[in-house]
């Protein structure tokens, strides 16, 4: 049935968990595109047939016209499915950028992206950084309104020594050590999973 493959692509999106990326299914994507090209060829040949019979394209309503109509509808449908696939993935990628700004693309995510999506990731985060430096404001911190400017955190991964904090002091984030930090300093490490917040 027409449009079945394109719908499979969308089903794949729907069955994945929200906010999670799956591998870009370039195989199926290509198949849908070649199905579209097939539709296009058949559409053209039907239209040519109508013209060769010397009938008026606008007013003729014969079986060839309806055949062309069905190919046209299938094309429109396939287009919608492909667009939805790309669009919804791009949306997920954008929300990842907001959470991961400043760090490179994690390898487990990079392998799931197609080439153009990877480029989109890089360019979009570059634009966002450029915008924030123009504003002189880091928009990615304080996504949750703060109750207290300082929080206690435990280091979950060896981050390293001599990390310069915003108040020009350096800290040694050894594994399992506990620190009392400014929220804004800690936030980027927490969202990357390198620290956790401690509750007193």
């Amino acid at each position, binding site marked *: 049935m027409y449009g079945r493959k394109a719908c499979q692509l969308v089903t794949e999106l729907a069955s994945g968990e929200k*906010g999670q990326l799956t591998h870009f299914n370039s195989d199926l994507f290509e198949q849908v595109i070649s199905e579209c090209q097939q539709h296009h060829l058949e559409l053209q040949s039907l239209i040519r047939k109508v013209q060769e019979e010397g009938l008026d394209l606008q007013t003729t309503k014969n079986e*060839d016209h*309806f055949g062309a109509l069905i190919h046209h509808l299938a094309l429109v449908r396939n287009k919608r*499915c492909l667009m939805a696939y790309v669009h919804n993935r791009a949306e997920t990628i954008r929300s*990842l950028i907001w*959470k991961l700004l400043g760090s490179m693309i994690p390898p487990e995510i990079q392998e799931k992206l197609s080439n153009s999506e990877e480029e989109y990731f890089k360019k979009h985060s570059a634009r966002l950084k450029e915008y924030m430096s123009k504003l002189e404001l880091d928009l990615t911190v304080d996504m949750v309104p703060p109750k207290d400017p300082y929080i206690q955190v435990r280091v979950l991964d060896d981050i390293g020594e001599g990390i310069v904090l915003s108040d020009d002091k350096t800290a040694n984030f050894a594994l399992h050590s506990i620190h009392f930090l400014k929220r804004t300093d800690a936030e980027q490490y927490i*969202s*990357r999973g390198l620290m956790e917040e401690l509750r007193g």
Partner: protein
Amino acid sequence: MTSYYDIDDILAEEELVSVVFQKAVNGVGIDPSSETDSVESGSKVELPFWLAQELHLRQVAVMALPSCFNQRTRLEIQADAAFVDLRSRCQFFYEFGCKIAPLVGDRTIGSWLLSTFKSRYKEVLTKAHSAVFAASSKYLALLSKEETKMYEAAQSSMTAFKKWRMGGPRFQRASFLSRKRKSTE
């Protein structure tokens, strides 16, 4: 109005409807019973809704009422709406119903969908707040996609409310990372 990119809307339009062609169509392979690349007038074919709708509007084919809205389902829903298995009938029962209602000649579908929803809604909401996770899976299998979403929304807002009351941790590791780590452990 649903968005062009809406995944659920796209999937709802993939539901099959049986249509009877009023006109002959050339050069398409949509009739599995036909040996040539054409559909003859009067043949009955199952088509996805997105195609059936347009053909119906152009009077190329006439749509029949899908079986998930037939008299038998109605009787079952009248008996005990909350425990009718809508998912196996049609994943997007309400969405699909709303799409098909103006096209087929049955004027009662709209009000019937509404009353079905009303009587099931109560059960969904109470189950979402009270049921233990393990016990609810059997009930969840009966719900249509729209109802499942509602069920999840009710549960997550309850958890969010409890978390807010207890004052849980406000920062969390970005969710897509935590999942990945867990699976590699």
